[in-house]
């Protein structure tokens, strides 16, 4: 019982530190509504541009994507939190030493997609991909088919560049499930 009570006190201190309260104010805390908003640890936003996510639903389910632009409060057409993602439609194949340069170049191709996805249909990961896609994948690139195609083509170029440098290996490997 002694050990348990010590642990409980430790837990209380841990949680109060988490919530940024001091132990003395535990029972007699009477702050106003405004104070309550600012006190305590704030949640960190993680669905931000350059975040690598996995698409969970739709045709691209299981594909990795990177958030280009996020709309937390939604828009008139989509009144829910969603984001513009650029993802990989077809991953680059595994290049082996035996491959000729022509074959290696063919295997290193990446096919991309650009899509607006609901937050519910994404799984955030701890990875980020800092490829600059803001000028390429803009708000209006999904309005017409040829704009979409050109945006996808441009992201394909940038993704292939990044793949060839050998960085962000996780992003360019297929998620096995």
């Amino acid at each position, binding site marked *: 019982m002694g050990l*348990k*009570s010590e*642990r*409980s006190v430790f*837990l*209380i201190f841990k*949680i*109060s530190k*988490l*919530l940024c*309260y001091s132990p003395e104010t*535990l*029972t007699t*805390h009477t*702050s106003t509504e405004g*104070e*309550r*908003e600012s*006190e*305590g*640890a*704030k*949640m*960190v*936003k*993680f*669905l931000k541009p350059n975040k690598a996510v996995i698409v969970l639903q739709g045709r691209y389910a299981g594909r990795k994507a990177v958030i280009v632009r996020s709309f*937390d409060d939604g828009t008139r057409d989509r009144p829910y*939190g969603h984001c513009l993602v650029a993802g990989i439609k077809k991953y680059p194949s595994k290049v082996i030493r035996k491959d000729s340069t022509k074959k290696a170049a063919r295997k290193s191709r990446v096919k991309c997609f650009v899509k607006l996805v609901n*937050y*519910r249909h994404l799984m*955030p990961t*701890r990875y980020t991909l800092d490829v600059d896609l803001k000028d390429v994948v803009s708000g209006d690139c999904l309005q017409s088919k040829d704009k979409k195609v050109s945006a996808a083509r441009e992201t394909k170029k940038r993704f292939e560049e990044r793949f060839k440098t050998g960085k962000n290996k996780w992003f360019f490997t297929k998620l096995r499930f």
Partner: protein
Amino acid sequence: MESGKYTLGYKTVLKSFRNWKGKLIIIAKCCPPHRKSEIECYSMLAKVGVHHYNGNNNVDLGTSSGKYFRVCCLIIIHPATAFGTVLHVISTSVLGITPILHDINGTRDPRPEPLPDPYTY
């Protein structure tokens, strides 16, 4: 849900993560492991604390919240009025007593009398 102080249930917990609201997650012991790890993953990214409630199962967590249904996970959105009750839940869960998570919107004393321990019946 925006104006409330806590919400119960897996769907609302994920919704709060996507709305950037919430200070502490409490997960029942019997939460399915896939769901538990998903919530822990989200909370790791959002830097929100997770507490594993020490009661037997989700029935206990529901009872502690003062509800008549099972609760697998809940999220505390505004801890100020709930803080005393959250601590009460957590401290008593560590000590093995099942408390009632007090009605958050009420202005009563944050330390209600604990329920009689159901395991001694």
